[in-house]
Every structure is written in structure tokens, then in C-alpha cells.
């Protein structure tokens, strides 16, 4: 069957700066399990885009294969979407970004997609610093094939069937930092007050923005003994700080002693409070240290982990024209007959 939302809209729905209502950022009805963390993340993405007043059609959402990769159908229905092949979203996103540097790119991926079959592409997308938001909906298991452990499952974590994972987890946040990602964050699907401002900041960030979102699988990995269950995450979650996103031209009102403001490339700002001890979001060493220390303590560290606000994305590095390549026409692309004749002459 086809899932379509009713088209009825309440006339008094609040509108954003560009006159869109929140409905304009919604997608088809989700077919994921009731209570799936992924749906909360979809909602957070829609909410962030609505609040930031991004024109829906100026967003492209891309994904691989898996439960997480289905979600782009469930948010931003007025945006083009591309559900590609397993683990290969980063390459498709690279091509799309090269073709048109002016759109906002959302890559949505899962732990199987990014930490296993697509690890190579994930790594190289970071290395190339694509200007995109890369969301990993991380549940530590393969939901669509009924709950096998993924590469992000913690060593010792128990599955629903009772077996224990015997292998070490790949930490995508630690990996992202190591590879030079210019925006690294971790969040929890159950914490929208943290996730929404992080997504907004990620959109504003001019380079590769990784958000690893722990998103419990209610059907296969929400049992006692699992380290990716709602209960376990809630009990072990720690935050680097609270995060407020302050759009361009808005004044920051609140002020605390243990607060920090990070001005983003487009003039918006992140207002961070209750800072984790010894952590500075613009200092990679302190970020790596915070991640390792909390891991030692058995904590799940969330929030903004690291940011390099002024960064050169792939198009800057390649010195591509500011005009989207997909709009160029024959006059700029085809060297013409005289150049060809000269070339022929040089080959005789």
C-alpha cells in the first residue's frame, strides 16, 4: 500500500520567515516500527529546516540502504530524494554536490551503511570535506534483516536473542575526528532539544558535518543488556554542553560563566552552556580527550564534539566556479570549432 499523509492543513498553522508551514517540511507516513528512534530524527530534521527557513526544494536528501535510509521518504516531501545502494550514498552525494554547490545536502545513513559496507565511502567523503550534513541513525544492529549486530555494537552488548557481541565497536565520532571532519557531533534520538540545534548548526556549517545519532531499535535492540537501548542510553548519556542555535542577526540574551559562543561561517552562532570540563569545541585535542575519557567511564558523550567554523569545502579546494556546474551551457563548456581546428593542426 501507499502511505500518503492527508493534505488538509490547518489555516492557522504558524509560518516561518519564507511563508512555509511545518507541514511543508513533512514527508510520507513512516513505515518504520512504532517508536523507532529514526522517526524522531526525521522529525528533528524537518523541524530544523522549518525553523531555519530553508526552502524545501533547495534541499537534496540522499541515503543508502537500510531502515535509516528509508527515512528520507518520511521528511521533506518537497525535496528531491535519492535512496541509492547500500553504503554508497557518500559517492552519490559527492557527485550531486559537485554538480550543484548551491543546494543543502542531507546524507542519511545507518551504522551498517557507514561503519561496514560503506566505510570506505564514508571515510573519503569526510576526507574531501563535502559541504553536507551527514546523519548516522545509529542503532547498533541490522534492523531490516532482523537484528544482527552491526559494527557499532559495543563489545559485550547483548542482543534480543541473548547472544553477546564479541567484537569491538567502531566509534564513528572518534573516526570522524581522526579523519579531519570539520563538524562532529553526537546526539540521541530521544533528545530533540539537543538534536535540533545541532542539525541547524550542521546546515550552517560550510563543510562536512557529521552527526552520529544513537537511535534505539525498538524491535531488535531495546532489550536489557543492550548498550543501545533507550534505558541504557538515558542512564549513561553525558553532554559536552547544552546547545542553542542562534540564527544570523539575532542577539544572544542569556549569559553564564561556563558558556561559550561559536560563530558559524554564515554569521549564525552556537551558544553553548554548562561546558564539559576541559573541553573546547574548537580544540580537536580536547575533543578527542573528552571522547576517550567518557568512553573509559562508560558514558555516552553527546552534543557538539568539535567544530572548525571556517573551512574550505571540496569546491573551494578544487577552485570550481561559483556558478553551479549543472547550469553551465554550451557557450562556456564547448571550446568550439576554431580550437578544434588548431588542435587538428597540431596533430599533423
Amino acid at each position: 500500500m501507499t502511505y500518503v499523509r492527508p493534505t488538509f492543513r490547518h489555516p492557522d498553522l504558524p509560518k516561518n520567515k519564507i511563508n512555509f508551514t511545518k507541514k511543508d517540511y513533512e514527508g510520507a507516513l513512516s513505515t518504520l516500527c512504532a517508536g523507532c528512534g529514526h522517526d524522531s530524527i526525521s522529525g528533528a530534521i524537518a523541524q530544523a529546516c522549518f525553523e531555519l527557513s530553508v526552502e524545501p526544494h533547495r534541499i537534496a536528501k540522499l541515503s543508502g540502504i537500510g531502515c535509516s535510509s528509508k527515512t528520507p521518504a518520511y521528511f521533506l516531501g518537497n525535496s528531491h530524494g535519492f535512496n541509492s545502494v547500500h553504503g554508497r550514498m557518500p559517492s552519490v552525494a559527492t557527485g550531486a554536490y559537485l554538480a550543484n554547490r548551491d543546494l543543502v545536502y542531507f546524507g542519511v545513513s545507518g551504522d551498517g551503511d557507514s561503519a561496514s559496507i560503506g566505510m570506505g565511502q564514508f571515510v573519503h567523503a569526510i576526507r574531501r570535506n563535502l559541504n553536507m550534513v551527514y546523519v548516522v541513525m545509529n542503532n547498533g544492529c541490522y534492523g531490516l534483516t532482523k537484528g544482527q549486530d552491526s559494527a557499532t555494537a559495543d563489545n559485550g552488548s547483548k542482543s534480543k536473542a541473548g547472544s553477546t557481541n564479541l567484537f569491538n565497536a567502531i566509534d564513528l565520532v572518534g573516526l570522524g575526528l581522526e579523519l579531519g571532519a570539520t563538524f562532529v557531533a553526537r546526539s540521541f534520538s530521544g533528545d530533540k532539544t539537543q538534536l535540533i540545534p545541532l542539525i541547524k548548526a550542521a546546515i550552517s556549517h560550510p563543510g562536512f558535518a557529521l552527526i552520529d545519532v544513537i537511535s534505539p531499535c525498538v524491535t531488535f535492540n531495546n532489550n536489557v543488556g543492550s548498550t543501545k537501548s533507550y534505558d541504557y542510553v538515558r542512564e549513561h548519556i553525558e553532554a559536552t554542553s547544552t546547545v542553542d542555535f542562534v540564527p544570523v542577526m539575532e542577539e544572544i540574551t542569556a549569559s553564564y560563566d561556563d558558556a561559550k559562543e561559536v560563530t558559524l561561517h554564515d554569521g549564525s552562532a552556537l551558544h553553548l552552556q554548562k561546558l564539559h570540563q576541559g573541553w573546547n569545541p574548537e580544540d580537536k585535542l580536547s575533543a578527542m580527550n573528552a571522547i576517550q575519557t567518557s568512553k573509559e567511564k562508560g558514558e555516552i558523550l553527546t552534543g557538539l564534539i568539535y567544530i572548525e567554523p571556517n573551512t574550505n569545502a571540496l569546491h573551494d579546494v578544487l577552485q570550481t566556479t561559483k556558478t553551479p556546474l549543472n547550469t553551465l551551457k554550451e557557450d562556456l563548456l564547448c571550446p568550439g570549432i576554431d580550437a578544434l581546428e588548431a588542435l587538428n593542426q597540431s596533430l599533423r
Partner: protein
Amino acid sequence: MSKVNDFVVRFANVNGTGSASANGMFAKAIFRMGIPVTPKNIFPSNIQGLPTWYEVRISEKGYLGRREGIDLMVSVNPQSMLKDVQSVSSGGYFMYDSTKPLHKEYIREDITYLGIPLMGICMEQYTDPRQRQLFKNIIYVGALSALLDIEFGVLEQLLAEQFKGKEKLIPANVQALQLGVKYVQENFSYPLDIRVERRDLVGNRIMFDGNGACGLGAVYAGATVAAWYPITPSTSVVEKFEKYAKKFRTDKETGEKNYAIVQAEDELAAIGMVIGANWNGARSFTATSGPGVSLMNEFLGLGYFAEIPAVLIDVQRTGPSTGMPTRTQQSDITISAYASHGDTKHVLLFPSNPKDCFELTTDAFDLAERLQTPIIVLTDLDLGMNDHMSEPFEWNPDRKYDRGKVYTAEDLENMGRFGRYLDSDGDGIPYRTYPGTHPTKGSYFTRGTSRDEYAVYTEDSAVYVRNMQRLEKKWETAKDLVPKPHFYQEKNMSPLGVIFFGTSTYSSEEAIDLLREQDVVLDAMQLKAFPFNKDVEQFIEDHEVVFVIEQNRDAQMRSLLINELEINPKKLIRVLNYDGMPITADKIVKEISKSLAVA
């Protein structure tokens, strides 16, 4: 028999010793004298040290295929010398470095030895070891110019062109040439009976490699995104694209580029980027060889099913697996035609010379966007990495890119509901939209899963079948859009037909002439594309027996013809060469004669 303008010279060198440019100059000089020439590199998968050969066929009749039999061997590599001596045709010549005497095992009674103390001359003339090595090559070219009657002025002119901007290097090179000439003048009677004579048989033709022509074609076709992973023998396609794009597509004031090139982490990513860029409305391509095509299968299937344009240039090499990476074959036909799981078919184009490479590459971009599907240009190592004499490149100044069926914001504004996979025109080709076109209309979800006409996911059997049938209809439409085959006769003259394509063309044309001298008349058809259209079917229908000439073991093109056109297999006779070397006319003549004798 006089061998004026009709002989084969082979150079035996050590890889990485700078012989390529000297040997290239030799071939180019003959070309400049108006004589048809075809050079071929026979090189190892190695950067330095292993034996490498350069073979030049000179043909007054204009035959550009490889010919068996070596009339003059220029032996500068002790490693391969024994084999090199043995490979000279009886009555031929063996030029060697006589600084040290030749051991008796190298002596044959039926060939003439031309000993030149190359190393001795170099030791005497030069002190720098690198100079000794490089000028050795120039000295033997000088010696050859005297022995074969190559005009010295032509060589001087080529040196002047080669060292344009570095003019101070010219006199030393000219001097090295003269050292070779002088030695011949003082020690041999010259010129030899094999020699060249100026002709006017080249016209306005050019010498260029197929990979360069493909790269240039991609620039002319408006490709803006190239993604690739290095692999022999395709690497120079993107390198040449970069060279010409840099030259023609860089803003002179800002230095900004109207193109983007990414060296991907592997072939999977390369084709993924191409798919992503094309989905987003840019013309994008990649180049690879057989092993890369194997890796790209997954995305080619997505491109077919999700209907996304892509251009892939496959420079075939000898397979299977890693095979012989620096040898040629036409053995990716089957995998390219049916790449990926499920029911898939892909449009293939078969260039046979550099001009074809240029034109079929430009056509590939139009076809990819018109048909919204991957297009694979199947060239090969022989065509891609060797210089070929070719008609000059042409471009119609009025030519506009065919961007296919794409709805604009205005179109969307004035229409009802957009259906990405609706067959509105009845040709199986739907309309697409680029991301970012219209605020509320035209967005859709691209997917490799089954979907309905509005791009909504479905597992409804009837809808799935309807979609697959539409793709089949699109395939029928493709038959009329792809380049037609080339026929060598206005009207059929024989019950015997012959089919060939790509680099088998040169030797096939020669073989047809040779067989005609034996009163065997063949009607000929050169394939340019897959799917096969009615003309291809008709040609086979009109002949009792059709020989299919190709360079692979399993007769892949023959199988494709049988499979797609439901031909009686007995009617199609395989003529094959798959040893990694370009097919020769002799081989074709032998195979066809043998087959006719049996029949």
C-alpha cells in the same frame, strides 16, 4: 620484391629509458612524409626495467592494422635480444649495439646485421649517464633515417617542435641524429631495399590516441564532472580531459574552473559520483577498464532501473581477472551489455579510430540524457594508448547538447501532477526534474526499489511489470537513436558476410581486400552500437554465412547477436584472436579460408 613504403620496424627497448619519444619521432617523421603509418606500443606492466617494444608498420596502401613479420629489428635491449633475433623475418635486418661483439647464438644466416656501436659512441661523446642513455635513442633514429631514407629536415623540424620553449636542447639532439647518420654513411651501403619515399597519401589526417580523443570528446560534449580511479589502460582518458578542460574551461581572470575532477577511492565510488552528478543535472563521466566494470556493476544496475544518465568509457584490456593489464582485447562486451543483476541491458558504442572516439563520446552524453540510462563506450588498449592515423576531428558549430526530457520550473507550474515515470510520449522515456527546480512541484524520490509512475514505492506485481515493460519499450526506442552500422557496399554482392567492430576494423578491411584477390567476396558491416537495429538484423538475414570477427575467446559479440536477434548460431562463424596482441589481417584470412575450405 621492393619494400618501398611497405615494411614493419620493431624497436626492442628497456622500459623507462626514454625510448618512447625517440620511437614516436621516427613514426611521426614517416607520417610527415605523407606515408600511412601505424605505431604500436607493446609494453609490460612495469615502470622501469622490463622489455618493451614499439612496432611501426609502414603501408603505402594505407592499411593500419598490425601485420605479422618484422623486416627490421632495432635491438637495444640485451634482455630480449635472443627472442628479438628470432622474430625477424627471413631476409630482414637486425640493427644492434655493436659496442661488444655479438655472441654466436645470435647469428642467423638468413638476415642482415647492422651493428652500430651505440654505447661506444655515447661513451665517447657524453659524460652524463642520463645523456648517454637518452642520446643513444636519438643516435639510432639518426642511423635509421639514413638507412631508410627518412628526410633529415623532417626530423629536425620534429625536434624543433618537441623542444619548443627549450630551444637550447635542439642542437645537441640534432648532433646526436647526425652521429647516427655519419656512422651509417661510413660503414654501410644505404639506403636499404626497405625504405621510404615521400608520398601524398596522408592528406589532412591527424595522429592521435583514442584515450585523448575520448577525453577531448568529453570536453566538447560539456561534461563538467569527471570521477575516476586510475587503471591501465584507461588512465589517460581523464588525464587528457583534465588537460583540455584546464586549457579551455578555466576562467582567465579568476582562475575558476568550469569543471570538477575527483580521483575517487575506487571504481564503485567513481561511478557513484557520476550517477549523483547526472541525477543533479550535470554531464558526468568516468573511464575504466574491465576490472573496474566488474566493480561498477551495482551502480550500472541502479542507473538502468532508476533511469539516471551516465557515461562510462571502458578501455578494454586482456582479461579475465587482472589478466594481461597492458595487452589488448575486446572482451568486456558481455559484462557491459548486461551489467548488474536482474534484467538489465545497456547501450554500448564501439569506436574504431580516434575520430570515432571523439564523436561517439560526444554522442554518448546526448544518448545518456535522451535515454536516461548509462551509456558505455567500449574502446580498447590498442585504440586508447596508441597513436593512430585518423581523419581530423569535426564539430558542427550549430550543435546543441541534447539534454533530454527535463521539466523546467515553468513546465511544472503549468501542469498537473508530475509523474517521474509516466510514459507521456509513448516512447518509454519519462520526464525528469533536477533537484531545486520548483518550490512545491516536481520533487520525487529516486530509488533502486520498485515504484509506480509517481516514484512511490510499491511491491504491486502489476505495477512492477508495467515498469519493466516500459523500460523494454525504451530499449526499442534506443535502437533508432544509436549510431547505425556502417556498410562497405551499396548493394550486397555475396552470400558471405562479415561483421566487425572497434579495432578489429583495420585488419578486417585489409583481410577483405586480401580475400578478394583470392576471389572470395565478402559483404561487410561494421557495428557501431548495441542495441542492434533492423539494419543489423537485415544484413545477417541477407547472407547465408556471416563471419564475426572479434578479439576475445568466447565470441562475445557473436553470442550477443544470437541472443538479441535470435539468429541460428550455425550461421554465425567465429573469427577470433585473443592473445593480447591486435588482430592481424593474415589471421583473419587464414581463419576465413579454413572455414570456407571445410564448408
